[in-house]
């Protein structure tokens, strides 16, 4: 399944993350999951939210660089070896995974994958 993720560039300075969370709260946007990748200078906050277009609009207005990135979502079956079996299905030449994290849901967790070539990867996974 394809999902739209919203990415926000934030500098590592006091209160910045708080500003982002407040903007989302004030606009009644639900954060379903997030991952924060950081370097010593800045962070990249990646989120799956209830309304990414609205989130993009309000965060942009506040001055944050924002982009919407398509990611692949795969439901996990909570069994040993799931991850390996999944990754093994992707042919080596397209298996360039930029990053991944999980999204919890009532029916178990969902793996979020960012790849360079989502169409081919989805086809390989038989999704």
């Amino acid at each position: 399944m394809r999902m739209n993720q919203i990415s926000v560039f934030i500098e590592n300075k006091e209160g910045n993350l708080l500003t982002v969370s407040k903007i989302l709260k004030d606009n009644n946007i639900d954060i379903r999951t997030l991952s924060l990748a950081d370097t010593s200078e800045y962070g990249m906050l990646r989120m799956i939210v209830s309304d990414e277009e609205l989130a993009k609009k309000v965060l942009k207005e506040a001055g944050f660089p924002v982009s919407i990135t398509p990611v692949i979502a795969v439901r996990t079956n909570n069994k040993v070896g799931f991850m390996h079996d999944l990754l093994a299905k992707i042919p080596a030449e397209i298996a360039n995974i930029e990053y991944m994290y999980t999204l919890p849901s009532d029916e178990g967790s969902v793996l979020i994958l960012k790849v360079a070539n989502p169409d081919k990867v989805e086809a390989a996974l038989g999704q």
Partner: protein
Amino acid sequence: MIWNESKECMSRDEMNHLQSTRLVKQVKNIYHSVESYRKKMQAIGLEPGDIRGIEDLEKLPFTTKDDLRDNYPCGLFAVPRSEIVRIHASSGTTGKATVVGYTRRDIENWEECVARILTMANIGSSDTVQVSYGYGLFTGGLGAHYGAEFLGATVVPLSTGNTKKQLTMMRDLGVTAICCTPSYLMYLAEAIEEQGILNDLVLKSAICGAEPWTENMRREIERRLHIEAHDIYGLSEVMGPGVAGDCQYHTGLHINEDHFLAEIVSAETLKPIPDGETGELVFTTLTKEALPLIRYRTKDLTSITHEKCECGRTTARLSRFKGRSDDMLIIRGVNVFPSQVEAALLDVSEVSPNYLMIVDRVDNLDTLEVQVEVDERFFSDEIKELENLTKKITHVLQQALLIVPKVKLVEPRTLQRSEGKAVRVIDKRKLI
């Protein structure tokens, strides 16, 4: 000791007379051999014959760094290329270098000037002098080298970098004097302390320049290394290091006045101001053949005194420098203009040309951080891409500035806009 008593201890009358004779000759020479300066004089109806001595100096038009840039590379040279034996260059305001040239006689005069200043620092022919200024287009390395050699000292041309080798040579060769930037010497002092080799050294003096520094920093260097530290001043347009330097009394920098005629003018009105008052330093080169300059505005702020010094020298002295009248920064001895950063960033489409330069001194070495706004249109959510962008900007800036900055990406619109007077530079070094 005084290297050249006949020149350094002249009476004021004798010096005025010598400077007047040389000025009259130099103005004639420039008028006939440098077209752009001749035009400047003609534009105000001034002829060489109108200049009869230093009292007429004020009538002459100024020369600025822009004149050097507009006549890039060699348009202000007053001799044919066959007479030029050396070229040096420094960075200009827009990335274009300022090229300077020297005839054989110019090099000889330069050696003489540096030798006088090394002598002020109690360096003589039995000394071993380590030159740890950069060698190359920068005037520091070769300028100090030739002067020390002329003096008869043993020169160890180490240039900059490779701290370990610097210290090994200093110890093994019994180096007694070092020429380098004050911040580099502070850095070496720390390394010496770390290695615990201070007692193995016979270093007695340091001649530091190419960078603004304070009296406190001088005392700190002296305390840590058990040496005497001296200040040397110069700029490539006028010659290089050796224009002025301080004696053992450290009461200002003696100008080599027989070669360089100094004036202090108000930075606002450009009118001469009295001794003791701070203004912009202006030099007229009295003996330079390749690149003679009339009333060259250095943009350095200082004051002057013509009182005789306790050391016996009568040459005028400049007080410690109090800053600049333009936005030029001196970082690790390299001239950096904010406009260079701006011009370089225009070549990187992924960022907006909004930037902030933060200059600091960490562990006694100058640091430059350049903050650049990420352009939303090119924003990538991959850290890898942002890191590549940082590398690209670092590379572009390094090419333009000749020093490696630390580049930091920041959110758009976080840096001040250029409406009004945007703050482009924060200098945290607190030197003055």
